[in-house]
């Protein structure tokens, strides 16, 4: 009952405060809109807004980001479906079937399915989040020390390496490249400068926002620009036939399966919604009697991916609030919002800022519900965006990214870094590397090294110390098993099928 009381308290606090309502509505609309404009994503909006959250209360700042997270993950599906541009990596599998559906003139149906499934997956996830986060945080206070957090980061990276790139090895190289970028700056133990080459800009470490903007917003524009220049850019066909309830009910097993997968993936730090969407899609293909139909415009593909990625949003808040570990780029920015208000996310937040937590939870619940209503209304407007020629949209997107990168710290070097990251991202994508993998390496690299150093100090530099901590040991073993199975799969498994 305590959960219900807290939820009612959070809801009342959210909707009795005019500024809170304004921030909530701004987040809902902004997340959807930025998610839905090709080339920019919720990350662009979040990056642009991050410096301004200093003017908001901590409660409103975190709430804004969590609402953008929920609606942005849905909004990204629209561009994935209409333009084959996933708004964020977690929408990539949506494009596999969503875009072929658009080419067949079924864009409305695919978007309608994304609306329904995102709302459903997200709402269920928000409910589980409300019930589970506090007990997990309580448990984490006693059970999770640096060795466990390091082990969790290792496990998360091991799983992330096996999805997202052309080959397993490129997946690992992507993660390692991210870890290398994270090294630039001061080392977390002794404060010794590494790879700064005497430049003050590098001494502060490479900020992840320009890198994220470059990899996702700018690189995407470059890819589309190449298509435009070479004449292979295809304008999508417009259609506004929404799916019937019967069609959606026919896929109820896919929905339930994706909710479960999405939630469990969301809990993993650093991968969250991206892994959720890929696994949701992957399992849909594996369970299907006609797997060959996936990728040609199958509704179930969109449903599986979109349910799973929104189901991960609530779950991703659990490691963030319970352990202080961000589940992806957007939750990493939330850590930034906490820090701007001199707070650290982690188990103590439940004791020191219970009100904040419940307002955020209530906001996430209602944000997911509002996808249903606003999603339907907005979709018709968004479909009109298709009529805007890309050569007019691209400069606007590049300008928004420029302002976003500059606004973080007021440094034009960040804009240079963003565009350089865009060019690097363009070439890496061509070569089959995983840009989300690099970003995850970058975000988790610092946490990984810091917790590793603390763990080793705690264990008196005895490696066997990990064996005495069951959770850490289990996670490390699971990480190695994931690695071994990926290596086995990369060298032998597919070989057999191709030989057969």
């Amino acid at each position: 009952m305590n959960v219900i009381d807290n939820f009612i308290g959070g809801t009342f606090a959210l909707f009795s405060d005019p500024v809170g309502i304004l921030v909530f509505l701004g987040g809902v609309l902004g997340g959807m809109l930025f998610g839905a404009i090709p080339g920019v994503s919720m990350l662009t909006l979040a990056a642009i807004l991050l410096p301004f959250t200093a003017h908001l209360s901590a409660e409103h700042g975190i709430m804004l980001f969590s609402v953008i997270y929920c609606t942005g993950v849905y909004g990204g599906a629209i561009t994935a479906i209409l333009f084959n541009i996933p708004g964020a990596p977690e929408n990539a599998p949506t494009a596999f079937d969503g875009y072929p559906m658009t080419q067949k003139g079924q864009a409305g149906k695919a978007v309608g399915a994304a609306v329904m499934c995102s709302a459903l997956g997200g709402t269920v996830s928000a409910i589980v989040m409300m019930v589970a986060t506090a007990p997990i945080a309580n448990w984490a206070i006693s059970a999770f020390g640096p060795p466990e957090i390091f082990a969790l980061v290792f496990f998360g990276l091991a799983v992330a390496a096996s999805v997202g790139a052309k080959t397993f090895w490129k997946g690992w190289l992507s993660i390692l490249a991210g870890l290398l970028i994270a090294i630039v700056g001061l080392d977390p133990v002794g404060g010794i400068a590494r790879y700064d080459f005497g430049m003050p800009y590098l001494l502060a470490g490479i900020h992840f926002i320009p890198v994220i903007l470059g990899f996702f917003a700018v690189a995407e524009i470059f890819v589309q620009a190449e298509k435009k220049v070479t004449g292979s850019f295809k304008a999508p066909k417009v259609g506004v036939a929404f799916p019937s309830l019967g069609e959606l009910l026919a896929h109820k097993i896919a929905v339930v399966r994706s909710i479960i997968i999405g939630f469990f993936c969301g809990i993993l730090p650093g991968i969250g919604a991206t892994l959720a969407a890929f696994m949701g899609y992957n399992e849909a293909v594996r369970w299907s009697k006609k797997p060959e139909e996936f990728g040609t415009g199958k509704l179930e593909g969109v449903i599986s991916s979109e349910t799973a990625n929104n189901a991960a949003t609530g779950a991703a808040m659990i490691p963030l609030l319970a352990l202080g570990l961000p589940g992806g780029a957007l939750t990493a920015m939330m850590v930034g919002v906490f820090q701007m208000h001199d707070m650290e996310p982690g188990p103590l937040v439940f004791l020191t800022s219970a009100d904040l937590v419940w307002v955020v939870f209530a906001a996430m619940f209602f944000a997911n519900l509002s996808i249903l209503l606003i999603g339907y209304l907005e979709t018709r407007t968004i479909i009109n965006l298709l009529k805007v020629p890309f050569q007019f949209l691209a400069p606007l997107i590049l300008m928004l990214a420029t302002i976003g990168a500059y606004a973080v710290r007021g440094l034009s070097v960040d804009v240079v870094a963003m565009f350089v990251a865009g060019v690097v991202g363009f070439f890496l994508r061509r070569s089959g590397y995983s840009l989300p993998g690099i970003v995850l390496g970058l975000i988790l690299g610092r946490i990984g090294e810091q917790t590793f150093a603390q763990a080793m100090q705690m264990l008196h530099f005895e490696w066997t110390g990990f064996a005495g901590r069951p959770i850490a040991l289990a996670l490390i073993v699971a990480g190695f098993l994931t690695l071994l199975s990926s290596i086995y799969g990369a060298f032998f498994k597919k070989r057999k099928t191709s030989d057969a």
Partner: protein
Amino acid sequence: MKRLKTGHIAEFVLWVAFAALLYSFTYDFDQEIEIYKFGASSWPRVILLLVVVAATGQLLYHLARGNGEKTTFASAADDGSGRTAAEQHHDTPRWYLATFSMLLIPLAYALVPEWIAAALSMDKAGLGTIKTVVALVLLVLFAFAARGNHVGAMLTLPILFAVGLQDFGFYTLAPVFILGVMYLMGERRPGRMLIIAAATYSVLLFLFVSVLYVGLPTGNVHPFYDFGTAMVTLLQ
């Protein structure tokens, strides 16, 4: 060895060379930390060794399997499969050479004016003039290089814009940049280009400068700085 292509070997060599170079730099910060016996360099070194292992794994994989096939779904969205013949034109060594040469133009802007000013021991105002002249020369060079390589130009133009931001300001460069991107993406109707560029510029400035009070770079070279500050005064 038949399955191994030059590109695969080049990729491997690049990774290993990159790792070796970064490894050599670890000696710069190979200091002991009293409370942490691994010091500041162990973590980077382990990662660099893993880079070599992964690059070797990738090479062996290509040796065994050729160009490889998609092992994950992400690759369907990200790899180069389904590229048209026109797009593949941008995969030739010649294209890479032309594009990487063009990408040196922004680097030249970042270095050359400082060198010239140092050689002529000029003051700040003189440096501004040098920067303007160098920027114009490089812009002409860029326009010339862009003629046959619009994709390469699309990659270079944003960096050129970014390196100029500090000196010439957002307010001056943004309209030029917007028009440039439209042109490179194939738009040739001057009327539409001007109207849409003006609309984009006005909406962005209104939203971010007038409403959200974002302090965009005004530049520091005359007369661009004066224009930038005048715009800020006008908008705020």
